[in-house]
């Protein structure tokens, strides 16, 4: 046993390493298919909603005039709009991120409730003038224009 092993030690090591790394790869692929959280635009969420409770992301614009604060002072409610007439109501408890205002782009991480409200655990707003959430690319012309206006504040 040990003589055979000594003779082929390098081969054994290579095979073991390959098994471990391929195993890690397979495990990762399997887990990714279950654990990745998918991104929805409002119109996609309305047309083909994810399962209630599944972790997903919702991205769009905060509809102007829709931002309300509940009586507890820390729960925000607002609508995220995609193209014109699609809107998803969102509830979020917490401190809204920097630069979260009506009309700005937002990506909400959370899950859809049975009543159609999206409960966000986390809001990602743009960090600075160069930052547009990747997911918001490919929005309508009007929104793209609004976004461009947003992103060029301070430039003459």
């Amino acid at each position, binding site marked *: 046993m040990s003589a055979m092993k*000594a003779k082929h*030690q*390098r081969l054994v*090591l290579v095979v*073991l*390493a390959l098994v*471990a*790394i391929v*195993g*890690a*790869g397979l*495990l*990762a*692929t399997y*887990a*990714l298919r279950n*654990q*990745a*959280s*998918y*991104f929805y635009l409002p119109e996609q969420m309305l047309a083909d909603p994810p399962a209630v409770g599944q*972790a997903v*992301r919702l991205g769009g614009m905060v509809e102007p005039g829709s931002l309300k*604060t509940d009586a*507890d*002072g*820390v729960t925000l409610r607002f609508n995220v709009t995609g193209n014109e007439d699609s809107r998803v109501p969102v509830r979020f*408890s*917490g*401190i*809204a991120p*920097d*630069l979260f205002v009506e009309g700005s782009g937002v990506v909400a*991480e959370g899950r859809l409730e049975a009543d159609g409200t999206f409960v966000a655990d*986390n809001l990602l707003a743009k*960090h*600075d*003038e*160069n*930052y*547009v*959430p*990747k*997911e918001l690319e490919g929005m309508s012309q009007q929104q793209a224009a609004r976004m461009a206006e947003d992103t060029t*504040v*301070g*430039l003459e």
Partner: protein
Amino acid sequence: MIAEFGLAALWLAAALAALQMVAGFLSVRAGEETELAGLIRPAAVVQGVLVSLAFAMLIWLFAVTDLSVKLVAANSHSMKPLVFKIAGAWGNHEGSMLLWVTVMALAGALIALVERRLPERTMQATLAAQGVVSLGFYAFLLFSSNPFERLPTPAAEGMGLNPLLQDLGLAFHPPTLYLGYVGLSVAFSFAVGALLTRQVTPEFSRAMRPWVLGAWIFLTIGITAGSYWAYYELGWGGWWFWDPVENASLMPWLAATALLHSASVLASRDALRVWTIMLGVVAFSMSMVGTFLVRSGILTSVHAFAVDPERGSFILALLAIYIGGALLLFALRASTINEGERFAVASREGALVFNNVMLSAILAIVLLGTLYPLVTEAFDVRVSVGPPYFNPVGAIFTVPMLVVMAIGPLLRWRQDRLDRIRNETALVAALVLAVIVLVSLIAQVSILPLLGLALGIGVGVGSLLPLWGRKLTRVPLATWGMVVAHFGIAVALIGMASESAFSKERLAAVEVGQSTTVGPWTVTLVGVEPVAGPNWTAIEGRMAASYAGGEPTVVDPQARSFWAPPQQTTESALVTRWNGQLYAVIGDRAPDGRWQLRLWWKPFVPLIWLGGLLVALGGMLALIGRVMADLKRREVVHRMASRRAEQEQLA
């Protein structure tokens, strides 16, 4: 004039890199002393000087806010404090790439000056490889990211620097990570040089090791500092987000950790030759992948300064050339490397191989999780991958690695018996089990933090056992380094587990004068005032925080608004005690006039960063130990040579 001078210095340096590459390869090919060979080392040294000059020019342009330079106009502002003007020189894409090549050229100059251990031919190949790598980055800088470009008409005022980046951390964070990345590029050049000249020897490993160690120390510090920055600056109370940019620094660290350990085996035991070379290639690939992810604009984050598809393609092409080329060379040459020394499964080498494989598996998991969203996006499916993936899947490989790490250092080289260390093993196992039982009896803790606490204590004790029964003053510095670094991992692990197991959070809307509680703390909102800084205004919440009814400490978190560029940031306030940290953030004002407060009590959270610093300190001890040993060896060689010369003269 200054800008043109800097640009000229860069072009000259690029020409020298080309010379270094051509002369290097020709000399290696000729296989004998040629006249060209004499040019290689000086080319590397002068290159280092020229690029440092160019970088100094850029800093000067930022310091005086020369608005005729496009980069300054786009990223600076005359009203900014001087320290941020200077740090702003590398707080943007072009400047940070110039910093990268500066560090790289200085590293090249340093090896050219001091490294004399390896056969001259291997050194020529190494420097030639270094020339190839640098040339790619010079091309990138000069053709698609020129930092010295002028504006046709000077701007009236600069556009300012992203306020999130206006923090002292910026002055240190990118240079630290770049030193790490570039150190790995040197390791890569050594590996290519060794492969080309078939010199995969313990000597090669000893020459490469300080660079890997140095890179690893800087990566450790960079990751630790980046994590703390995200913790206090982003105001979400988290310390690691599995953000692609964080992963971009974690992946080279994982590869460097594996490389460090396998290089040790090669240096002291002449085993794992092919594996070490492979890891050298992988580690640098991970630096390149990291640079690609961060700099190509493929990700959106505070790090992706500009979205420019041309740059992305450029880095991707560089990545493909270097990694493809290195792997091809590896495939052609790997079979010619003789198998190294053998060892038994139960031996120090066996344990190190196991940990190497586990580290590689974790690396694969992080890499796949980071790239997966980019791949699916190509098929128009947008996903994000976060903690629900990384934590459990990573743990599958981290847990066995930690188990072996606790007892591996006790094993002897080459061949050992597990029953020789059964007492130590039993001690560690008993501690781990005791912690699991005790903690699950007194608190409801989920499985991963529970394992983290138990293994943290097990590894902590296990890491100190190699010192048991030894005279502490006689323990070599490098061994101290290992002990301290392993202990640091344990400390960080306990901090992470404790943070996720025992954190308390409170979100409340509070009127001035009212109190709220979080964990053992009572926090009273004393007042809210506007304050102003040099380029921002803020509302500042003044709070009195008292721990378990004790004397209150005043904390004042702020919500800042910058005006150039317009943006808001959250400045959290921290109260650190020996047993944890209170983390306070002030938010918006609710329509009824109350203020939003978000408070966390995070027991033992500072241990995370303390552990990271200990790991880096361990690396430094090991590096100092190795370098001193090398200097001593050189001195002995030198003295022997001079004595021999004396004797010859006498004779």
